[in-house]
């Protein structure tokens, strides 16, 4: 039998109130995210087309670099371009969530100082912004993968909602954590791009699984411990019909819960002090 103490119950209900307040402000989060997306390209000639063009150009650059110049690692992957862009689009979602999460509080200091609202709105809006861009890039995946690699949308697409959901929860945790850290430690903004670069090379994106399977066991273990590994496996299952080790589903759930728990709890506990640091 378990007992719930009064203070535990108070804490639980405080969280319930917090989530309810957050939910009541969902329209604000949406407008903030869409406003930022629009504003970013408001003065460009192509405007919202950049949602599509950005991932396309990103894929193009990486394809030239790792498909032709440093082509040694692509060995053993028949559909290298599809492999590459599915990985890059998913990775960009995570890295954007981290960078814009880190900025979300600092860029909105005026809001924080003037208005009382659950501060999680800001990292959530940053994540929505990144997520909309990601979904747009997923939309063009087959536009590239079909003609080049002959990969067509198939039944395995039923895995996509699960992949996106778990990956999004994971990213939300990261966005909250970087947002919380960036308020007292602005240095984070300088560190994140380098961490992200390293993280990308440690994730199966520019190299196929055959590359790592040829490596020592410890190296494989390191790669498997990478939290992004299971999400990549899920996306490759959903988009390319690749085989999926069920372990990766559990790992994806595990990392989402860990990131979300650590990120959101540390963020919310720090909320009351944020204004003092702005």
């Amino acid at each position: 039998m378990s007992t719930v103490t009064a203070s535990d119950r108070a804490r639980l209900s405080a969280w319930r109130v917090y989530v309810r307040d957050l939910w009541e402000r969902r329209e604000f989060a949406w407008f903030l995210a869409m406003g930022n997306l629009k504003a970013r390209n408001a003065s460009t000639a192509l405007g919202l087309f950049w949602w599509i063009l950005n991932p396309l150009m990103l894929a193009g650059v990486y394809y030239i670099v790792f498909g032709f110049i440093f082509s040694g690692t692509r060995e053993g992957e028949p559909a290298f371009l599809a492999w590459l862009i599915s990985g890059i689009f998913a990775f960009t979602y995570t890295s954007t969530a981290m960078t814009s999460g880190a900025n979300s509080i600092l860029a909105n200091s005026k809001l924080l100082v003037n208005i009382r609202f659950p501060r999680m709105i800001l990292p959530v809006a940053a994540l929505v912004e990144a997520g909309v861009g990601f979904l747009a890039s997923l939309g063009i995946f087959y536009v590239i993968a079909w003609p080049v690699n002959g990969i067509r949308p198939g039944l395995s697409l039923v895995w996509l909602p699960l992949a996106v959901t778990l990956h999004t929860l994971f990213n939300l945790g990261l966005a909250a954590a970087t947002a919380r850290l960036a308020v007292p430690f602005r240095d984070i903004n300088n560190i994140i791009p380098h961490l992200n670069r390293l993280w990308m090379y440690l994730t199966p994106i520019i190299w196929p699984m055959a590359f790592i399977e040829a490596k020592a066991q410890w190296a494989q273990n390191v790669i498997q411990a990478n939290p992004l590994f299971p999400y990549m496996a899920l996306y490759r299952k959903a988009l390319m019909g690749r085989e999926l080790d069920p372990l990766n589903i559990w790992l994806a759930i595990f990392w989402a819960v860990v990131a979300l728990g650590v990120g959101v709890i540390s963020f919310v506990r720090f909320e009351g002090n944020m204004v003092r640091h702005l």
Partner: protein
Amino acid sequence: MSDHAILVKDVGVRFRPYLDRNPTFRRSIGKREPRVAEEVIALADVSFEIEKGEAYGIIGHNGAGKSTLLRVLARTMRPNTGTVEVHGRTSTLLQLGVGFNNELSGRRNIYLGGLAHGLRLAEVEDRFDDIVEYAGLEHAIDRPLKTYSTGMFARLAFSVSMHLDPNILLLDEVLAVGDESFREKSLHSMRELLARAGTIVFVSHSLSTVEEFCDRALWLDRGQVRLVGAPSEVIDAYRAAVSSAE
């Protein structure tokens, strides 16, 4: 039920600027300087109460703690000591154009500003035409905000704030930028708010406006309450102190 709109008791706010100077990792894990040395006491033992329907002026020199006090009243900053009770729906106008995005149109910014202040989307839609009309910006509403003049920006921001239906309005030196007609219009709306038993806290360096508009005034001096009373009385004492210091 009390007829207090705001009850402030023994409020103290301290800053530790060494923590606020964008500390680096090295500074924060390295040896710390003694805390007391650099502490800034922005507010100390501040107590006062504001009645419903009252226009309450707060005056004081630069750095006296007026903006800090309004942040505490807006409950965006937790005081280190003391308690604050606020009865009513607060609308804050500590700065102009909170929640606005300069790249977007005035139209879009009305939505952003309204939602930021806690309105529902449907509520913003209902009030949209009134907000535009009140601001007198029908002709410019689809232009990006960055093309607005300072006064146009202020009109839009003030109009949004007045349409939030606040019971309590917190103003920090925001009427200074509008032109004369807009100033008159804003003062008129603020009087209407007072007539509906609303409450206004008004921070300003314009002593004549405080004298003309407020029912009571508080003089904040280096984080402490120096005097509370009729505006003319408080302003005279403040003026006397300023001229004797010169």
